[in-house]
């Protein structure tokens, strides 16, 4: 169990709802759900959720901490915002799902090789390096996430597309070496470091 997780368990014991309210983005909304299920029905990847949003809200209230945090359900969110605009209680469901994913990821409870988790991590790390996304590195990274051999395979699958994009000047091979980026990378790094610290203190991630 990660220290962060151990610390969380110690801090909140049985009160998972409280934990979610304090630590998860928009978590204070969870209690407002009235179990109508419109979110679950509205989700484009709905069929692939082991636990749809409204059920997750109920599980949180019922204190089913591990089931929720180790679930890959919220990783299915495509950020389409259908649930948000239809929710009769105006819960920011998309953000709560993002928040839960982020929290589970942070506690190290999220499924290890959950592809979206892997990609999202890559994406963020990619963008903070220069302040902007380096699409080539990102896609290559993605191909090779499951090891070199699979990577070549993936790359070959997309080869035609890749070449097409280059021909269309929508993919730049030289991004591998230079590519776009912000000038004030130092400032950005410092700013983000600070932001993480503040967030940790606000959400009681006392270390």
């Amino acid at each position: 169990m990660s220290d962060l997780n151990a610390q969380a368990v110690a801090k909140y014991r049985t009160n998972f709802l409280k934990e979610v309210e304090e630590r998860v983005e928009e978590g204070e909304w969870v209690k407002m759900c009235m179990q109508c299920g419109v979110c679950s029905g509205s989700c484009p990847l709905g069929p692939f959720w082991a636990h749809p949003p409204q059920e997750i809200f109920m599980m949180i209230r019922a204190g089913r901490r591990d089931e929720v945090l180790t679930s890959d359900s919220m990783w299915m969110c495509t950020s389409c915002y259908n649930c948000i605009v239809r929710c009769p209680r105006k819960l920011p469901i998309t953000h709560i799902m993002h928040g839960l994913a982020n929290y589970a990821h942070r506690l190290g409870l999220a499924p290890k090789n959950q592809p979206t988790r892997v990609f999202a991590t890559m994406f963020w790390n990619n963008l903070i390096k220069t302040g902007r996304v380096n699409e080539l590195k990102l896609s290559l990274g993605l191909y090779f996430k499951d090891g070199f051999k699979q990577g070549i395979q993936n790359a070959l699958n997309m080869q035609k597309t890749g070449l097409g994009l280059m021909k269309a000047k929508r993919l730049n091979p030289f991004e591998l070496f230079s590519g776009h980026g912000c000038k004030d990378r130092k400032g950005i790094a410092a700013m983000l470091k600070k932001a993480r610290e503040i967030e940790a203190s606000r959400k009681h991630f006392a270390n």
Partner: protein
Amino acid sequence: MAKKEYAFYPGCSSQSKASASNYLTSVNSMCKTLDIKLTEIPDWNCCGASIGYAEGGELPRHVMNARNFALAEQHLPGQQVVATCAACWLGARETKERLDASAQLMADTNEALKEAGLHYKAEVEIRHMVEVLIEDFGYDALAKPVVKPLGGLKIAGYVGCQTNRPFGIAGESFENPMYLDKLVETLGAEPVANYEQKVTCCGGALAFSETEKSQAQIKNIVESAYDQGADLIVTPCPLCQANVEIYQEQINKRYGTKFNMPVTYYSQLMSVAYGGSSKDAGLDGQLIRAPKLEEIAKK
């Protein structure tokens, strides 16, 4: 009409040689005709996109966006920030609304921004290019410069998610937004009447991680455009454009379909209708070429 000036936030994908570089090309050509001056926010950074949450978390995401706001306030005072990318617009607007709603968050954000020597005064307005076109110009004004009406083209207006929900374009419905169709009409083309996949999600960022699931979605989007006899699909969102265009090849492999449906940006249609060449409209940037559109451009 007097020149309109905006602080421009192109976003990562709309840089030269990036996946939506043709979007940028066409936007520039469109703006030239409409006499819009876009000034790039100096040293702007990524918005975090819809997938930034998992590793980035809450405050860092907001801080990234706030940095752009601060830069805009500093270098382009008084100008509204205009994004062409749906995700950039959404991410930025989300940040703005959350900061406006929470003094705490605002303070924390500025505390972090200080590290980069910046301060956000909460003065910027965040808008999508489509808003600018519809609200600051209006369909009639957009029709005036049309020199090559797109007659004979049947176009499926694929609105997708992020210009539509949760904020959407003022006065539009989440389930059946009409602005793309109206725009298509304005340019002399025929909009697909009941394009039922109009607001279906293309999978967004999950197109990379949950390929199969996303491609099932994309298949419906393209299929329904074919069913309605569309010549091409038009979209306001770079990610939609990329997903729906790029994956047709794989979908064909996976499902044995024969998709070859061009997917363009509204700005490309406008550029052509306003007399731009295929090159001005970035049509050479299409993975799946749009012959009918190129023909009109040649005229």
